[in-house]
């Protein structure tokens, strides 16, 4: 009988990506995020870079990699806005860290877990942005609109499922 070697879940489900995919996938997400709302204004509520951050973080299962990926994507997003650099960088860095940490505990290939993760982290990002705007930037006009945030989180879930399925094809087992 062959002897089976049981390793940690982290080692079992850790994936890597081709460097081209690592760079291009978030870039395409940011580009689509910047271009699509011009034609379809309601798409502004969907955060494609956030979905990419969550996907890469849970796939790699490395909190450090998740933090760095999220931060870089967030900073790139900040560059296209009129906000100071760091607003989205902090929020997405924290989201990347949490997503990678949660990836240890749950089966992120399960579709229900994926929906729950995306929904929760979308709401968490909205809360973080509210805190950053209020505490760090002193912007009292920024308001947390629960209904809008819930709709945005639900829309992110709808988009995340097919997007995860597409990105799954580029995973390489480490």
């Amino acid at each position: 009988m062959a002897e089976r070697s049981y390793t940690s879940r982290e080692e079992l489900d850790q994936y890597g990506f081709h460097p081209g995919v690592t760079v291009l996938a978030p870039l395409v997400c940011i580009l689509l995020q910047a271009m699509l709302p011009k034609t379809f204004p309601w798409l502004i509520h969907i955060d494609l870079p956030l979905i990419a951050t969550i996907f890469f973080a849970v796939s790699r299962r490395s909190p450090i990699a998740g933090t760095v990926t999220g931060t870089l994507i967030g900073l790139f997003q900040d560059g296209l806005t009129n906000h100071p650099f760091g607003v989205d960088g902090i929020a997405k860095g924290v989201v990347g860290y949490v997503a990678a940490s949660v990836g240890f505990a749950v089966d992120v290939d399960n579709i229900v877990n994926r929906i729950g993760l995306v929904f929760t982290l979308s709401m968490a990002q909205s809360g973080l942005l509210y805190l950053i705007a209020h505490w760090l930037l002193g912007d009292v006009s920024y308001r947390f609109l629960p209904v809008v945030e819930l709709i945005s989180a639900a829309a992110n879930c709808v988009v995340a499922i097919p997007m995860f399925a597409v990105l799954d094809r580029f995973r390489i087992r480490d």
Partner: protein
Amino acid sequence: MEERAAEAGGARFAALTMDSFFYRFRNPLVLIAIVLMQVIALAMQVQRPSSVAEVPSARAMEEAGSAPDGKHVSLLRRWTVTAVTPLETAVHASSVKVRGAWGNYVNLFHTRQQDAQLKQEVARLREEEASFAEDAAQGRRLQTLLGFKESYVTSTVAAQVIGTSGSERSHVLYLDKGSDDGIRPEQAVITPDGVVGKIRDVFPKTSQLLLISDSSSGAGVILATTRIRGIVKGTATGRVEIDNLTADSRIKVGEPVVTSGGDLVFPRGLPVGTIESIAPDPLHQPYTSIVIKTAANLNRLEEVLVITGTSATLPPAAAQDAATAEATQDANQRAADLIAEKLPSLHPDADGAAAAAGTPAVGPDGKPVSDDPESQVGGAVGYINSGLPRPKPAVHPDKFTPGTVPPAAELTPGAPAQAPKNPATQSSPQ
């Protein structure tokens, strides 16, 4: 020897402990370090250089929260924009070509009909222009008399929207024209419908348009009917509102809002929108929140005009249009006079100007006209069409009846009172 060995062992233990601490908590430590760096970077970006705050216009921008970035931040933003905008421009250009080809094909079916409609509209607008020409000329004369500094738009650059910020909290668009095309920060951006925003940041080939719906945007406005001045601002949710006015019953829903020119960015008189709702602002009592429905559809912007030049005098083309309109107005007036001469019965108030000035109407023979009710359209006795309703003759006249007492100029102080005359039997001045 034993002491040295103990010291070395202690140091090694401490190093191992520290190593294990950093190794064990490396993930949260990296997160904390990255977040901390960005917080410091945020603090540095929010600070403004003191030399900038000394410039009045820069201070105004700072108050509005739309001041341009510092040197290093601007460089970072330029790199980001440079990485994204070429792709956006390429995609936009190809989509415009596809849509243009299809649009040209479809439009051919309707060209003749549209041409006829446009000609009719041009004729109608010319007539309207002519009717407004006199008022405009009078307005300009009064402005000259009062030394009022008007700014006319002399040059614009048409630009196309190629992208957005991609964030629902940042109402920013990217245009396909930049500093190479003469665009500078703080220039107003409009569409034929109304104000859109202003240029925030400029790059060689692209520029960043800050919409008036952004929370850091602001513009001086005036309510067109009540002439009340205010400041229009964007909100975090993308609404446009005036929040610095107290409750005023004169302000009504539907009132047009135009730029006041006081912000030195937007020329005076550009349409901003109409008042959509008025409600007390619970966060800033006693002020009201006046929500504006923007004249330009900010969610569907394709092409915009960047105002690159203004002048205190009317541009040559506009001056020529005004002169043409005035000439048309004069021609229309002469035609109206000719008709009035040929058809006098249609204009019983030919001497209306004299009547309005308070002088008695005079007939063709030079004598005052009769106060016979048949010869008057309305007004007081002896004054044709003064605008006042003509009273009916009193059935039982007394001393209060109009016309029973002689004018004050004919009375003699101390003379006995005369018996009232019956206006019904009063003879005409002739």
